[in-house]
């Protein structure tokens, strides 16, 4: 085993801004010249421990490791593996530490990857835990912003949709606040506003302004980066509320016509009906590129956590 101290990525705060910048810069280099890194993780194994299915995130990680020349093991659904028999996370991860060099964990329970990191002797990556955090999506988002907006700092960022349970929003908003973003616009139905504890810590720790809005049209002309999220039907008590609200949080060409020419529209995907298909051909819609960049952000992260030399 290497001598370097084991690092994990459980929440974005595990990395300093310098380290986040380093991963973003490396992700950009990997995107521009992927062939140079095709043997960077030769002989290394990534374990993908998915306690709930998430095809997209798992494929993104597996692709990242394969493109680095590494191998993968893992499970994609806890019901088909021994972990469903009630094995504690501590036991699972102690065994996995012997099999693999690095692991990514997706878990429906909040705090599960953190618990795993306490018993692991390999780096643990949080691949999403309940409604809590999704730090590799944050890396993906930072890389996307860097690619399209040149800097991560200094933009008016709006989040739209389910801000209550949207873990991608929680991870990114905290991180952008650390990057000295001073104002966020929060567009959501009353039932799905950003959690109070998060609002409180954003105001206390970073002195940011949070402007709340109910409709996209009211604020779209001010926005530099519009981050859309999915509103799930299960979050509503009745069908009628969902039906009434879902169109308010739908982005289409007619709403987009009031936006800045260089605004970008991001989305962690999968989308259901919050972005109309007519937005796909608009150059401002960068969400598919964002998904592609996710692979390179994860490649950069894996090499950093494994401590492999990538200076080529």
């Amino acid at each position, binding site marked *: 085993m290497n001598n370097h101290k084991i690092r994990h990525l459980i929440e974005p705060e595990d990395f300093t801004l310098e380290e986040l910048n380093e991963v973003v810069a490396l992700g950009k280099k990997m995107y521009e010249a992927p062939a140079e890194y095709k043997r960077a993780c030769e002989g290394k194994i990534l374990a993908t421990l998915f306690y709930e299915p998430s095809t997209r995130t798992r494929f993104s990680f597996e692709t990242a490791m394969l493109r680095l020349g590494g191998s993968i093991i893992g499970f994609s659904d806890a019901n088909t593996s021994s972990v469903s028999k009630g094995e*504690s996370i501590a036991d699972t991860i102690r065994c996995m530490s012997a099999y693999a060099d690095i692991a990514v964990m997706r878990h429906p329970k909040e705090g599960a990857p953190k618990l795993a990191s306490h018993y692991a002797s390999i780096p643990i990556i949080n691949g999403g835990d309940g409604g*809590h955090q999704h730090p590799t999506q944050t890396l993906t988002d930072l890389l996307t912003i860097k690619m399209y907006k040149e800097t991560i700092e200094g933009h008016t960022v709006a989040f739209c949709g389910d801000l209550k349970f949207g873990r991608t929003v929680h991870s990114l908003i905290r991180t952008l606040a650390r990057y000295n973003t001073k104002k966020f616009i929060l567009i959501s139905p009353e039932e799905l506003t950003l959690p109070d*504890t998060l609002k409180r810590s954003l105001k206390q720790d970073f002195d940011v302004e949070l402007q709340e809005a109910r409709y996209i049209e009211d604020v779209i002309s001010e926005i530099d980066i519009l981050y859309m999220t999915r509103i799930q039907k299960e979050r509503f008590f009745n069908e009628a509320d969902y039906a009434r609200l879902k169109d308010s949080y739908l982005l289409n060409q007619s709403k987009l016509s009031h936006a800045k020419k260089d605004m970008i529209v991001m989305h962690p995907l999968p989308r259901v009906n919050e972005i109309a298909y007519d937005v796909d051909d608009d150059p401002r819609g960068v969400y598919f590129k964002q998904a592609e960049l996710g692979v390179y952000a994860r490649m950069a992260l894996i090499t950093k956590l494994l401590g492999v030399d990538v200076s080529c």
Partner: protein
Amino acid sequence: MLEVASIKRGIVLDHISSGNGLKIFNKLMLDQVDFPVVLLMNVSSKDMKRKDIIKIENSIDIDLDFLGLIDQNITVNVIENNKIISKKKVSLPKKIKGLFSCHNPRCITNSDDYVKPTFHLVSETSMEYKCSYCEEITKYKL
């Protein structure tokens, strides 16, 4: 006033807010110990109108963190050879492990037996604790 013989060696929990005595007695499971224990309720007090007192004869380990959560008025007197050798006010613990559960039903600490819920204090006035795992706030209530 009701008198109870003082103890030679042990612990006296004094200035318990009236009504909390029985709760603490139960929480500490003092009904299951085999050494002398006295619970005094509604005793008149100089600085409080009425208070409860618990006297425990025998030096046992009392979890001070735990007492701080229940009632911050409590004074803990440790007695050796008929003398008070230390007198401590309890306070709210900054960090807590395993004393109560996280109120977030989606938190891993509520579904994995291996892990003890762990918190740190975020607000003294409202007794709010932040979970180290899911980061949700739990307000402690007795």
